[in-house]
């Protein structure tokens, strides 16, 4: 079954090739990208909404295609993360997470399973702000203001529900055909 998934991206882009500050013109624009995703199973895929703001990004401006890809894979990552935290199944995490982020998630989900705990995330969207993009294009750091409802269960018993905004600092690196999350750390609003 095919499902239509909309990922909207607000990408404020600095014109490419202009590294000297006096030549840099920050042009902000909004892209609404509709992405067709082909579901492999009969279950529909729902991607969380991700808005990316790359205004004033240093030391390298972001290209439009890169911004679209980053936002798309960030949305995929949160979909897979939420699914893994709820089901305890970790198979899909390697598609979007690598390095420390992957290792930590694998441990977390393994220990959740042992404790009989699981977490349900109702994702109301992410406002991503790109704050660093290395000049060789190998790393991008982003801050995420996420609207999440997080329910924690022990078995079927609901232990806790959190409905406050969540803040994350994210490090993403490019792979052959996608951007991976290499580090994902939640921080308090005060630290953000």
């Amino acid at each position, binding site marked *: 079954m095919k499902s239509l998934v909309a990922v909207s991206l607000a990408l404020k882009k600095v014109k490419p090739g202009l590294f000297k500050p006096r030549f840099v013109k920050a042009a902000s624009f909004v892209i609404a990208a509709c992405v067709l995703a082909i579901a492999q199973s009969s279950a529909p895929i729902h991607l969380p909404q991700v808005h990316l703001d790359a205004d004033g990004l240093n030391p390298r401006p972001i290209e439009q295609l890169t911004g679209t890809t980053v936002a798309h894979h960030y949305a995929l990552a949160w979909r897979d993360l939420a699914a893994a935290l709820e089901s305890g199944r970790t198979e899909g995490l390697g598609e979007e997470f690598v390095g420390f982020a992957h290792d930590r998630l694998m441990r977390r989900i393994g220990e959740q399973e042992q404790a009989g705990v699981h977490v349900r995330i109702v994702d109301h969207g992410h406002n991503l702000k790109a704050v660093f993009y290395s000049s060789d294009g190998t790393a991008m750091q982003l801050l995420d203001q996420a609207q999440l409802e997080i329910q924690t269960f022990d078995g079927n018993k609901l*232990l806790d529900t959190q409905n406050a905004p969540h803040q994350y600092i994210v490090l993403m690196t490019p792979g052959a055909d996608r951007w991976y999350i290499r580090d994902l750390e939640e921080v308090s609003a005060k630290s953000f």
Partner: protein
Amino acid sequence: MKRTTRSNFAFCKRLTGSVLLFALPWCASPGWAQAGKLLVPTTVGAGQTFSIPVVGSGQAGSGQATFYLLGPDHVVKRHVSPGSEVQIQSSDVRSAGLYQVILCDSKSSCTSATFEVKAAPPAHLSFFLHPSRVPVSTRDSIDATAFVFDQYFNLVWAPAVVDFRITPASGTGFSRRGTTRNGVAWMRMDSTPHEGSVRVTAVLGNVEEARVIQQVAAEACALRMKTVASGNRVTLETDPVRDCSGNTLPDGTIVSFTKIDKLGKSTVDTPIKKGIARVQFSVHGRAQISVACGVVLGNEVAVAVNGGL
């Protein structure tokens, strides 16, 4: 039931040794987060041991309670007795991030609180130097980026000054400083005038990480050739091909010789060998020959095999 400042004080009084030392800053009310029956510190350093009191009052006072700790890479579930303390081990809080604590009493009434684990002091630098080869004397051509991590490989958010020490193969070294922002420090610099290796070391406290890049000659400068005629053949040979800083272009760099005579236009690409490019042409009548290397044009000569140069 709300804890009062007085009961905070009573809890602090019960702490001993290193736990007390660590807990002292929290005992002032801004350092504590209090949610119902839970009293947790607002922030903890990664890998630090502390304890969370299980308040023995109200409903939580009867029967066993269940304590949950959910962190970025760790989940703890323990049965605890009201009035006791839950010891949080160093291994429980190694990953930086927000941790959720949930305490459920025997009647399934749950209270939750969160605390933040912040990265420990810097212990590792992840250092990238770009590119690996760069032409000499090129503006803003070298980029250095350092990510600062603690001993548990948490990104260290607190601003820190990273010293980038540049040591060229020849000439004096110098350094640049960058302050981390969100755990990242970077700097951009010009390449130096002389070819050879350049070592760049990122230094933060007693943590050092070094990378080496190779500076190579830039584009050719003042490219010139001379001709030697022999019969209907002309040998063309460049002067030693150097860049504007006097560095010899590496062997293998292609130099193009282009001849235009009555038979038309022909180009020969030849690599530099021992700093010089050499080629031989057959010339019929008069010919114009030019030389180029990359984007640089050299001199042009007119040749006439039967009429002299």
